[in-house]
């Protein structure tokens, strides 16, 4: 894109990293890029924590008996794994780090519309996280991340209120981030940056933000009612007090299913950027990928009942939910096909971000088709709440979102830090993550069809082989996740030797027209956009079909 080419005199500017080194300059910063780094550090801590809980779960499942830890401890482990990973890692992961860093730059703005509110979001996230940690060290919580009533509100003896409070507060962080993004995307775009020229990353975040705004408050109030029931023994959901436990499930999934799209849509945005950049080619079907993000956000609000096929909900309601669920698979399929088609006649590089993106396409496809499977009423009666479900959503959440997150982190790492990481180690890690992931979760599809229920500390002996495979895979996966932590950190210590150029991949987009790392107000002069998005080619060619 034609803008001011600040990179040519890149030495004469103060980067956002160099603009103050005191604690206050970080903890009270209103710079979206610094806030993104704060988020990056804090969600990495939570990812590590959630990973440790996951390791405990997988180790316990090596043997059929619950011998490594007591059933109660095991229940706490999988609950805290779920709570930490969902509320404190997956939901903020891409939006709060990459989104925070890139949305204003991609819009050609100096910052988000409300920088103070952005900082407030981070503090809310930290307060929520501290509440979650407080609960973890004060007896932990063992209700499952779904907090189903009346178990959570009446029977559990663990730190339910502190954990739910943590999720509640972190929810407001998510809402405020979404609000900030929508206003920025609507009102802060540079001259010439029309809606049709917005990067797909921005489109995906726009759709995500809509869900955050409309869905999150519903779970917030639901958790409030649950906490009130628990604290004061008053009736909302407990049948012993006149309430309806299924109502809790409706309210919970009204948010928590769209929340799945909060967790995957930003990943789709990242993959769209990576595929086009590393194919050096405009994305295939730009309008369809952008539109499908909105389609997912809208249809995603009407499918929550597919979590409740066995709950006693009306059979006709279930059928409608099943049908709509199949419909929400369509926009996801559109994206997968378009990404694949983008590589056609491209100039495809196999750099690390691309490896992660290709891995995403494969694993997300498996997550998607198994999603179609579990949404089929008849088989869901069998598969619901088994390891098939566990495998399915890990394919989407880890195979999808975490791979996209790592891909995006590698892609924009040079921009964010101004340092190049070690490419060979990065490729090794990408391959290890892909293989380890499949070893961990593929056996769980079979376990699920065999009938292994989820959240079981002990299980019948005949399933041990599959569980061992899964645990072995998980150790490879864990190793694959630790590697980036090492070589990315190392890249920061290598100093000028690893200095990243302005545009190491020859990619298009406003963020590649400014120095790495960017100056405090992003652009040295106000950018103007006067070419189409992803304008890699000089020649135009019609598609095969």
């Amino acid at each position, binding site marked *: 894109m034609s803008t001011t080419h600040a990179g040519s005199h890149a030495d004469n500017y103060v980067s956002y990293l160099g603009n103050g080194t005191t604690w206050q300059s970080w903890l009270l910063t209103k710079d979206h890029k610094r806030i993104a780094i704060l988020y990056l550090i804090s969600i990495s801590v939570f990812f590590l924590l959630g990973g440790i809980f996951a390791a405990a779960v997988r180790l316990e499942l090596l043997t059929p008996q619950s011998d490594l830890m007591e059933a109660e401890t095991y229940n706490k482990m999988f609950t805290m794994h779920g709570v930490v990973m969902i509320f404190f890692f997956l939901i903020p992961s891409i939006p709060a780090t990459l989104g925070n860093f890139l949305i204003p730059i991609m819009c050609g703005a100096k910052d988000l*519309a409300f920088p103070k509110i952005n900082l407030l979001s981070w503090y809310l996230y930290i307060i929520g996280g501290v509440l979650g940690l407080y609960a973890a060290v004060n007896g932990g919580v063992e209700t499952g991340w779904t907090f189903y009533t009346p178990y959570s509100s009446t029977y559990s003896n663990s730190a339910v209120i502190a954990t739910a409070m943590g999720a509640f507060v972190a929810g407001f962080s998510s809402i405020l981030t979404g609000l900030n993004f929508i206003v920025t995307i609507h009102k802060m775009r540079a001259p010439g940056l029309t809606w049709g020229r917005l990067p797909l990353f921005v489109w995906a975040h726009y759709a995500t933000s809509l869900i955050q705004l409309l869905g999150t*408050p519903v779970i917030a109030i639901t958790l409030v009612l649950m906490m*009130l029931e628990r604290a004061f023994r008053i009736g909302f959901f407990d049948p012993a007090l006149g309430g309806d436990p299924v109502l809790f499930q409706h309210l919970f999934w009204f948010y928590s299913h769209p929340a799945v799209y909060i967790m995957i849509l930003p990943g789709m945005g990242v993959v769209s950027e990576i595929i086009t950049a590393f194919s050096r080619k405009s994305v295939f079907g730009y309008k369809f990928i952008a539109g499908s993000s909105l389609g997912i956000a809208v249809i995603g609000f009407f499918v929550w009942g597919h979590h409740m096929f066995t709950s006693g909900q009306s059979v006709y309601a279930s059928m409608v939910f099943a049908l709509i669920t199949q419909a929400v698979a369509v926009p996801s399929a559109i994206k997968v096909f378009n990404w694949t088609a983008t590589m056609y006649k491209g100039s495809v590089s196999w750099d690390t971000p691309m490896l992660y993106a290709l891995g995403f396409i494969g694993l997300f496809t498996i997550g998607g088709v198994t999603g179609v499977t579990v949404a089929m009423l008849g088989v869901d009666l069998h598969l619901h709440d088994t390891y098939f479900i566990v495998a399915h959503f890990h394919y989407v959440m880890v195979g999808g979102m975490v791979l996209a997150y790592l891909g995006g982190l590698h892609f924009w790492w040079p921009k964010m830090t101004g340092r190049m990481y070690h490419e060979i180690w990065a490729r090794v890690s990408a391959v290890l993550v892909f293989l380890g992931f499949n070893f961990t979760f593929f056996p769980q599809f079979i376990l699920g069809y065999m009938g292994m229920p989820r959240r079981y500390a002990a299980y019948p002996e005949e399933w041990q082989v599959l569980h061992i495979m899964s645990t072995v895979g998980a150790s490879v996966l864990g190793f694959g996740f630790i590697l980036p932590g090492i070589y990315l950190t190392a890249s920061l210590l290598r100093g000028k030797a690893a200095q990243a150029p302005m545009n190491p991949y020859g990619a298009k987009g406003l963020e590649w027209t400014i120095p790495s790392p960017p100056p405090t107000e992003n652009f040295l002069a106000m950018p103007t956009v006067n070419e189409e998005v992803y304008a890699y080619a000089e020649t135009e060619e019609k598609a095969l079909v």
Partner: protein
Amino acid sequence: MSEAVAHHTHPEEHVAHQFHDAQQQYDSSTLGMWLFLLTEIMFFGGMFGAYAVYRVWYPEAFKLAASTTNVPLGAFNTVVLIVSSLTMALAVQSAQLGKKNRLVLMLILTMVFGAAFLGVKGIEYTEKWHHHHVPGLNWQWEGEGPREVQILFCLYFAMTGMHAIHMVVGLGIMLWLLINARRGEYTASYYNPVEISGLYWHFVDIVWIFLFPLLYLI
């Protein structure tokens, strides 16, 4: 979305550094507030949803519970809030016209009505306490269906409580506007904080307009 004001590096212009001009700042703050209110609608929506479900389940108990509410006080409060909305609208208009003294007066009136609402609400809560109609803390019900009636009281306190918290936040915003207004921060060319705070205030009033009939009348 106090961002716009809190940020003034150039007090005379009131344009925060991330914006190109006052118009962009104005548009952004207004859109931000509307989006925030959308979130609020969903927040209250969850409770209205629960209300709808239990109303269908326990229609008799709800009628019974509603009959114990103090309709005159509720109606009085409704009027108080509607009048406060009017004074709020006049405050916004005063700010637009740059009439500082009238703005201060209207803000004070709005706060007086808001405080009056909370005071009356306090009287109602006290009444409920004396009648042992506070589930979980002070609950006793001699009549039909204690469990079912209790659900409505739970919803009553959850919904009016959440609304009251929003009123308290609203009063805080009014106080902050009042302080700034007395300092003459707001002019005919810069009145956006008053305007978007007005949006919030009207929203909170509208929630009450729905709560009053649902909890008191039907």
